[in-house]
Each structure stands twice: as structure tokens, then as C-alpha cells.
């Protein structure tokens, strides 16, 4: 891992709902090195998307970044003005979302939507030039150049995701955040899209943050895996170490409940449900579901500590040091 491109420091993002503050991201600290592929995994509702949106400074109201910092290439994004932040979005950080069916404007041509990026960031000087560049971007994403004239409804889900990736990498960003880019697609298309992202990463020298709840998918191409539970980072380390020897009981549960190679669910899942993030459990947030929980886990919060080449937040994991 080279110098870090992204450093999150005690990042906290809360949604202020009528029924109380949802602590969707609650004190996350992590580094992502330049050129890495980091996958963030965790059950639904663990705060993965919120974390990604926070990096883009696009957390929707009633959500707000309430504390911590996001250092991107040394600049704290939380301190930038909206105009400065806009120059980073789409230009230095690209983002791809989960639902390709809904992420394209249904009434505008694909080419126009990609061309926007070139025009907005002053890369193209005319509409025509921007459309030509959009054609190139489509080609880079594996779609025919002349599909710039197509409307979203003329494309399949996988093709739309390619168009969206084309728009996200149009300006060759340093960092690409992909939030469950293949969840809505069937398995074969999934693999192709992942191949595309991997190819583009190599070609453009991007750093990739992939968000998924599929730990098998994460294991395939990542350099490191980060595991989130209830708004917290609970384990972070190299893929092999995490997959072969998970230290955190939650990570172990995720791996054991993951579908095997033939796509069949294994019998063991993690019993219980993720907590209500308005009133997270005291101490270790995983303790109500943890098979290894100790008395102190109820009252004391385990700190994120380094164990070998990874970070983990569990008292029991420390015993193995």
C-alpha cells in the first residue's frame, strides 16, 4: 500500500429523524492507499452507503456529517465550500450507484448525460466536442460509441450500469466509489461489470472502494476488506487474512453465512438482527448477537486496535495477540 489517498478520522454521520438521531456512521477511522481496491462489507443498514455518500458530501437530509474529517489527497473535504466540493465530484472522485435502472435520467439521451460531465468541469468547450468525448467514454465502458443517441429505456440493466460507469470515469478520477454496483443485476452480468471496473482501475490507475454485502464478491478482487457493523468499523485488513482467519466474531459470522461457490446458502447465519441505530447497544454493539460475548462487552466499547497487519475492534480478538 502506497501513500494514503483517503483518510477518514472519527467520521460521524447522523440522520436527525423525528424519532431521534440515527447514528448511521459513528466514529469511523480508516485509510485507503492509492491504487488499492478496498471492499466495505456489512449487513443491510450498517452504514455503508452513508459512509460513501459522506465522502461525496451528498448525505441527504435529514442526514448530516456531524463530526470527524475526510482527508482526500491531504485536503479535508468536510471543510470545502460547496463549489469547491463540486469540482471534486465527478472529476477526482467518481461514484456508481446500486440501481442502474433508476440512476439514469429517463428523459435525456445517454450521451447528453455523460457530456454534462465534460461541459460542467470545463473539459469540453462545445456540446459537439462533449458528445464526441461521451462516445469515447461509452466505448471505454464496452458500449458502442453511437449509443450516445440512445435513451435509458432502450438499454438493459447491465448496459445502463456500463453507461453510468462511463459517466463516473469520464474524467479519469483518482478514486471510484461503487456502491453495490451489481446487486440489481444477474450473476453473469455481475461478473462482467466487475471485470469492467477492474479493467478500468488498471487502465486509469484508479483507487476503488467497492461497497457490497457479498463478502465472496469482495474477496475476489480486493486488496483489503473493511467490515462495518452498526455504524462502526469492526475489522479491516488484507483479504486473505480476513477470509481465512477472521478475528472479529461478526466477520466470522459473515463468512460462514456467505453462499458457497455454488451459490447455495450455508445453514449457519448470524442469529438476531442489526440494532436500532437510534439507540445502539452499550459497550460493544455486537454483544447482543455475539456468541463469544463477555461481561465487559456489555459496558465497555472495544477500541479499534492493530493486530498484525489488520485492525479489529473486539476484546476477544485481542486475547489472540
Amino acid at each position, binding site marked *: 500500500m502506497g501513500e494514503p489517498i483517503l483518510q477518514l478520522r472519527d467520521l460521524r454521520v447522523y440522520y436527525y429523524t423525528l424519532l431521534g438521531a440515527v447514528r448511521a456512521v459513528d466514529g469511523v477511522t480508516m485509510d485507503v492507499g492509492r491504487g488499492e481496491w478496498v471492499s466495505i462489507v456489512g449487513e443491510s443498514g450498517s452504514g455503508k452507503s452513508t459512509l460513501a455518500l459522506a465522502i*461525496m458530501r*451528498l448525505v*441527504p437530509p435529514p442526514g448530516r456529517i456531524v463530526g470527524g474529517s475526510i482527508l482526500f489527497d491531504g485536503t479535508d473535504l468536510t471543510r470545502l465550500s460547496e463549489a469547491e466540493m*463540486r*469540482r*471534486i*465530484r*465527478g*472529476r477526482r472522485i*467518481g*461514484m456508481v*450507484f446500486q*440501481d442502474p435502472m*433508476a*440512476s*439514469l*435520467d*429517463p*428523459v*435525456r439521451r445517454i450521451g447528453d*448525460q455523460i457530456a*454534462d*460531465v465534460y461541459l*460542467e*468541469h470545463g473539459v469540453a468547450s462545445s456540446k459537439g466536442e462533449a458528445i464526441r468525448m461521451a462516445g469515447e467514454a461509452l466505448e471505454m465502458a464496452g458500449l458502442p460509441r453511437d449509443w450516445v443517441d440512445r*435513451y435509458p*429505456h432502450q438499454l438493459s440493466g447491465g448496459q445502463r450500469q456500463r453507461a*453510468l460507469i462511463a*459517466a*463516473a470515469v469520464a474524467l479519469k478520477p483518482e478514486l471510484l466509489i461503487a456502491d453495490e454496483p451489481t446487486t440489481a443485476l444477474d450473476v453473469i452480468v455481475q461478473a462482467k461489470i466487475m471485470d469492467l471496473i477492474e479493467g478500468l482501475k488498471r487502465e486509469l490507475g484508479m483507487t476503488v472502494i467497492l461497497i457490497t454485502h457479498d463478502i465472496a464478491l469482495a474477496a475476489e478482487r480486493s486488496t483489503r476488506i473493511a467490515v462495518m457493523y452498526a455504524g462502526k468499523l469492526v475489522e479491516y485488513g488484507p483479504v486473505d487474512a480476513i477470509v481465512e482467519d477472521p478475528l472479529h466474531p461478526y466477520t466470522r459470522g459473515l463468512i460462514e453465512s456467505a453462499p458457497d461457490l455454488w451459490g447455495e446458502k450455508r445453514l449457519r447465519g448470524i442469529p438476531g438482527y442489526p440494532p436500532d441505530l437510534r439507540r445502539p447497544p452499550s459497550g460493544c454493539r455486537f454483544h447482543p448477537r455475539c456468541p463469544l460475548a463477555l461481561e465487559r462487552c456489555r459496558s465497555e466499547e472495544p477500541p479499534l486496535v492493530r493486530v498484525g497487519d489488520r485492525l479489529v475492534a473486539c476484546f476477544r480478538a485481542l486475547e489472540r495477540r
Partner: protein
Amino acid sequence: MAGLARYVAVRASLIIPTILILYTLVFIILRVIPGNPVEAVLGTRYVPPEVIKEEMHRLGLDKPLYVQYFDYLWRVLHGDFGESLVVRGRPIAADLKYRIPATIELVVAGFIVSVLLGIATGTAAAVRRGSRLDYAMRLYGIVTYTLFIPWVGALLILLFAVHLHWLPAGGRLSASVSLHRITGIYTLDALITGNWPAFLDALRHLVLPAFTLGLVLSGPYTRLVRANLSDVLQSDFIRAYRARGLREGKVLRYALRNALIPVVTYMGLQLAILLGGAVLTETTYSWPGLGSYLYERISLRDYPAIEGTVIVFAFIVSVISLIVDVIYAFIDPRIRY
């Protein structure tokens, strides 16, 4: 585009049953239900039966109903609405032809005002959803709809014509201004002939009626735009636009474009309500269109004139709904032809 052409053709052919149904409806109401229109007109004083009979014959009202039905339909399709009962020998078609452009001018202007007001208020509400401004705009949507047009008209005339003398209280053109009539839509005629004084004068006459009509009928747009736009603003593609660094102004523009598409389907219905509103607006502002014609002829009990006017209204409604549907097909690329 061949698909679109076919769609337009199919949709246009659907206008025929619509017009027929409305024609039948008007026919039933005006010829089947009532007693005797001639007696109704001459009603108050004594008239010898022979005179009534002769008059009925002249108007073709003594034929069996089904004959009348096709007779009148045939004539209407040829632009013949018969003669006035009151002004003997005056073809109603001539009156209607003179009045239609005035109504169209008012309705189009009122339509533009209502759409602009509705988009402005609805957008303000959607962008500041949940705020006090949003609440105020929702109230605007409810209250404007309950305003009685002649009342608003009276108050505006009081303020802008009687007290401030800024705008004329009624009519379409000052007596001192001359204008060569081409389409009968005065602002348009003035533009065509490059007659600026007449254009300004016609516009000044148009301001209050159009604003009255537009204000009262803008409420539904406020609601629709508010609801649609706040949905669209939360949709994934808007977030995707933002994630590519697009300026908020541009994002809002694209959002509006999506939010307004369903609004177009409402326009057909709304234009019918606008036509209804125009009847009251015209009467309040002495605007010589179909509505004030209807008003005059009702007090004179001139049945053929009433019948002709209502049929023309039905025709306009059908044509408008056709136009709106075609516009919709043009602006929404997803529509299946």
C-alpha cells in the same frame, strides 16, 4: 418518427367519438329535455299558435328528433349553426367566428400565467420541503382554487383600473387604437402587422383577465409540481447528477423536466376548466368572447345561439385534449406509440 406519426393519426381519429358523444350530450340536453324553445323565447306574451308553428318550422324544430339530430349534426359539420332566434336572419356562425379568437387569446394567456405561477410556487415548495414557505405554498394551492373569478376580477379592477388607473377595466382594445384584423387574436395580429401601439394596448387589456384566470387555476399546478418535483429530487438519477459535480441549478432544471412531464397530462383537463373559467372572466371584464356571448344570449333566451356556443366549446375541448396528448408523446421519449 413513423411511429409517432402513426400515434398522432390514431389519437386524432379518437377525437371523432369524443366529439360525437359531446354533441349527443348537448343535443339531448338542449332539444330532448326542454319543452319548446320558441315558446320559451316568446313565452311571456301571448303569441298565436300559428306563429309558433311557423317559427318552429323555420327552425326545423317540428321534425322528429332523430331527423333533427342528423340534420343539425350535418349542418354543424359544415359550419352552419343556424340563425339567431332573437336577431332575425343573423347567422350564428358569424357571431361565433368573431368571438372564438377572443376566447382563445384569453385562455392561452391565462394558461401561460397559471403554468408559470404553478411551476414557481410548486418548485419553491418542493425545494424547501417542510419549511414555512412550503406550508405557505400549499395554502396558496388550496386558497387560489376557491377564489370566485368575478370577485377577483372586481377587486383587481378596483385596484388597478379605478384607483391606480394603470390598466383598463375591460374590453380588448381602446377605441382610439386601430388594428387590422387577421386572426382575431389581437396581440398576434398586432405583431404580424408590426403595429406596436396596438400590441401594447391589446396586451394592457389582456393583463388583468389573464392574470385573474391564471391565478385562480394555478393551484392544481402548485400541488402537482410540488408533489412530482419532491419525488424526482429524491430519485437516484438526481443523486447521480450531483455525484458528477453538476451545479444545483442544472440539477433542478433536469429535475423539473422530469417532474413536468406528468403535469402535461393534467393540462388537457385543466384547459377544460380554464375554458369554464374564461366564461366568468369574460363576463367580468366585458371581454367579447364565447363566454360573454353565452351570457348575452342566455338573457335573451336565444337557444340556437346557446346550442352553437356549447357545441363549439365541446369541439375546442376535444381538440385541446388531442393537442395535449400529442405534445406528451413528443416530450416523453418513453411513450410507446
